[in-house]
């Protein structure tokens, strides 16, 4: 059992991070903490994608240098580049989300003077 857990530790890490993120988003009443939870959640997925591309004893996927055309290329020697590329996009998306959320928080704070969810809701109802 323990071996099973350890052998797949990267997946356990991302599951734990996702759960922390969801807990923060759902249970915390402070909007800033919700935002932090959202960031943890996004990063967990980025870690997940990065971990699936990693291989033991592999190098960066650039084929070239001496004798590149003569020696056979083994996929085992190289890290899968595609998840990294996908995650570059996902990081950009994540930064944009955080940016929008922070901008909204600034507006909320200027309007209502607080980050507490229930206080904001009370202010809106007035």
């Amino acid at each position, binding site marked *: 059992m323990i071996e099973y857990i350890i052998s797949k530790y990267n997946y356990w890490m991302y599951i734990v991070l996702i759960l922390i993120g969801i807990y923060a988003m759902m249970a915390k009443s402070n909007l800033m903490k919700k935002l932090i939870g959202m960031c943890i959640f996004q990063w967990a*997925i980025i870690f*997940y994608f990065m971990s699936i591309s990693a291989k033991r004893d592999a190098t960066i996927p650039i084929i070239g240098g001496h004798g590149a055309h003569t020696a056979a290329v083994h996929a085992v020697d190289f890290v899968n580049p595609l*998840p990294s590329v*996908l995650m570059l996009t996902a990081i950009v998306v994540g930064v*944009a989300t955080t940016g929008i959320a922070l901008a909204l928080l600034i507006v*909320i704070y200027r309007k209502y003077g607080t980050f507490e969810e229930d206080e904001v809701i009370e202010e809106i109802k007035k």
Partner: protein
Amino acid sequence: MISEQFPALIVVTPLILSLFIPVVGWWKRKLCLPIVLAALSVCMISAVGLLNMVQQHGVIHYRLGGWAPPWGIEYMVDHLNALVLITISFVAILITIYSKDSVEQEFPEHKIPTFYTLFLLNITGLLGITITADIFNLYVLLEIASFSAYAIIAMGDRGAAFASFRYVIFGTIGACFYLLGVGHLYIVTGSLNMLNLAELLPNLYYSKVVLVGFAFILLGIGIKMAFFPLHTWLPDAYTYAPSAVSALIAPLMTKVGAYAMIRVMFTVFEPNFSIGLFPITSILGWLAAAAILFGSIMALAQKDFKRMLCFVIIAEIGYIVIGIAVANRTGLTGAILHIVNDVFMMACLFSVAGAIIYKTGIRDIYQFRYLHRKMPFTMAILVIGALSVVGVPPLCGFFSKWYLILGAFEAKNWIFVVVLLISTLINAILFFRVIEIAYLEPREPGHAHAHAHNTGNPEGIKREEAPLSMLIPMFIIAAGIILIGVFSGEIIARVIKFAIPATL
């Protein structure tokens, strides 16, 4: 030939032009609206051209940058998304014209370029989601559409910023679950292209990874389309959004989510996987039935007209998912037809709500009294939209509901039939309440000589109709509701029949 480039043009034109709007708008504010219209006209022409080509030559595969799939990104157009593309670009053009006056009233002048940039970016995202055949590309475009929606909703008044923040949180959870599901499928197949996945996946259908990936993708799309237990962000966000924004986003965003759900369930996965291996269709069906009842009953409890329509949307999403969940040809025909119909019906009702707010500032249904004297044309359009949602023939809402009920009959699922009929009744109560308040004038029993009693005298109410730039798009949408209803047989025979997977 330019027609070969239609699939790219339909996304690239609005994307690039939306980036030009802030620059041009800084120089001349009046040019923003024509740029949006020009971009959307290109989309509309391309969409019609694409449907034409699909009908003549079959499915179109377009390789972006000439890279062959599964390495490159592929755009694919078949009957299903050609229909959705036309609907999106047509309604978007009308709402753009409609938005002119309401935007000028609601925002200070320097915000107009920002507004139209976000407006066009949102439409870009929606068109992109519809046309792409790459599941990761779908995620990126989903986020483009969502980001512009977050920002543009937050431009509204009162609680808009807070509602938008909640939408950001929920939307991000949805997008992340979708991405996680894509990751699961990528691990086992090594592909992101929908058609390539469809070839690779059947051998792996018993793999737990695929099942979990499928569930995550549906969960993500479910949040984005505000499917019943995941709908909590929708009512606030769409109620507080500026009028023109809710008239654009409310009809389109959720329906494009429904389209993505059909695409994943019936193109990426085979129908017999989505239906057979996993009790997903029965789960979806029961949730959809709950969504319909919940949405309709909650709508009854609302006083704010826009908020009431938001709950109607939740119910309408339930209709579409019930059509998907009964999983036979008739039900799916109803679901696809209902996507198109609902875009028109919701665009009609939300633009009416916007016009009423523009002219009178009234949001509360109980203050609608005498409105048919003030705004006779707007109220006539409201009646058309309302009757269509209730499902009165020959308006379009009747036909899609008819197919959904027939589909439920075929699946021998009597409870779905009952739910659909009950919700029709609730919708009738819902909208006749509004129509009654707006049209029937109260007779004051204490004053037999009403003519002597001057307060509340209906003759004294002046006509204050919405401006023509709002009325004409609303008229066209209302005419669309009638025409789609009358020609729904044609649409099904020529387009939707081919959109349904052959194995179903």
